[in-house]
């Protein structure tokens, strides 16, 4: 019985990993206002996973998302993968902490905002340290501004989906929720 529940959760994590890849491909359909800009649509399933799984499964989903994107985009052996992994892991840890600590007061919009900022701070730090040099801190405010905007968009969508989706309600019921 316990094995069944674990297998169900693993299967759903794999399915949500596929949704991350799907949202990631959807992102390419939208024109980018600036070259480095990313909406972060692939984070929507991760935000939903916070309501479904325990932290271990959420981190597993993030690992699947990062590796899957690396394989699909062919960036697994490049700095892009390291940046993506570092940003995604930092974002997931912050989102898990905020979601656990402030579940009563902070909605998925707020959680997404914190996650997006964490990801941006880590990626800016890495690019300053390894690529551009310390002078690149001048562009940090602009990137953080973009992070706030994209975090809000993703958070609003995830919150609306979590409230209205019959599928999400069914999954929550099937595996018991976080």
């Amino acid at each position, binding site marked *: 019985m316990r094995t069944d529940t674990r297998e169900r959760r693993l299967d759903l994590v794999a399915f949500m990993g596929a949704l991350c890849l*799907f949202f990631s491909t959807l992102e390419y359909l939208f024109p980018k206002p600036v070259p480095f800009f990313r909406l972060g649509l692939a984070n929507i399933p991760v935000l939903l996973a916070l309501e479904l799984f325990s932290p271990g499964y959420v981190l597993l989903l993030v690992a699947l998302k990062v590796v899957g994107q690396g394989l699909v985009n062919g960036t697994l052996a490049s700095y892009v993968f390291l940046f993506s992994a570092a940003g995604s892991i930092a974002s997931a840890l912050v989102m898990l902490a905020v979601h656990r600590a402030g579940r009563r007061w902070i909605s998925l919009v707020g959680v997404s905002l914190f996650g997006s900022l964490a990801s941006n701070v880590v990626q800016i730090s890495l690019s300053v340290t390894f690529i551009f040099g310390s002078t690149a801190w001048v562009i940090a405010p602009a990137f953080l501004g973009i992070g706030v905007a994209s975090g809000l968009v993703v958070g609003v969508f995830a919150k609306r989906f979590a409230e209205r989706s019959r599928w999400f309600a069914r999954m929550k019921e099937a595996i018991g929720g976080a």
Partner: protein
Amino acid sequence: MARRRRPRPPNRLALHASARDVFVCGIVSIVAFLFQSSIVVRAAQVLVFAMLATYAGKRIRWGYFVMIVSSITLFNLLTPLGRVMLEVGPVTITSGALEQGVFKGLAIAGLVFISLFAVRPDLKLPGSFGGLVARVFYYFEIVLESRQRIRATALVSSIDDALLEIYPGFDGDAAPAGRAAPAGGAGPAPRLVTTTDAIGAIMLGTVAAANTVLAIVF
């Protein structure tokens, strides 16, 4: 608002070489590339890696890479290093900073190009995590099949309807109702070869050996 993507060109490298062998060649190339100290040789290597990536069916966005290399060089120029080449108002262009910036920019572009030709979705990762990644790709193909049903005007409800059909829940057993997910090892792209033929071996061997020799000589 949304633009339609052009179909991706075929991966011709995948017709001759297995995902694992191409990946190993990529790893050897990365190590040799990073040990390269000549800026001219590094620039030539970047071009060769870009050609290989194109051969592997990847579309290179040249504008993006020119901008990456330019911006890395620009930020490096802000910290003067070495002989002064030019002074334009408050900006001083030094040879050391310029060389370092271009060198770093080429490294970044080269690593991305290597990754683009060396990594493909049917690369099987070992262990239970590798099995889960295979399961992700199995579901990804199913999700992609139903993308036409998603409407921008009713985004939440159309996605919800699609999800209810693709992954309706559990019928007592562990697998979702209606579908039986593979336990692992299921790779997409069945037309890709799983063993490397003679042409593939010659190509990959040449790439790996040439980069290694260049790293030793220069």
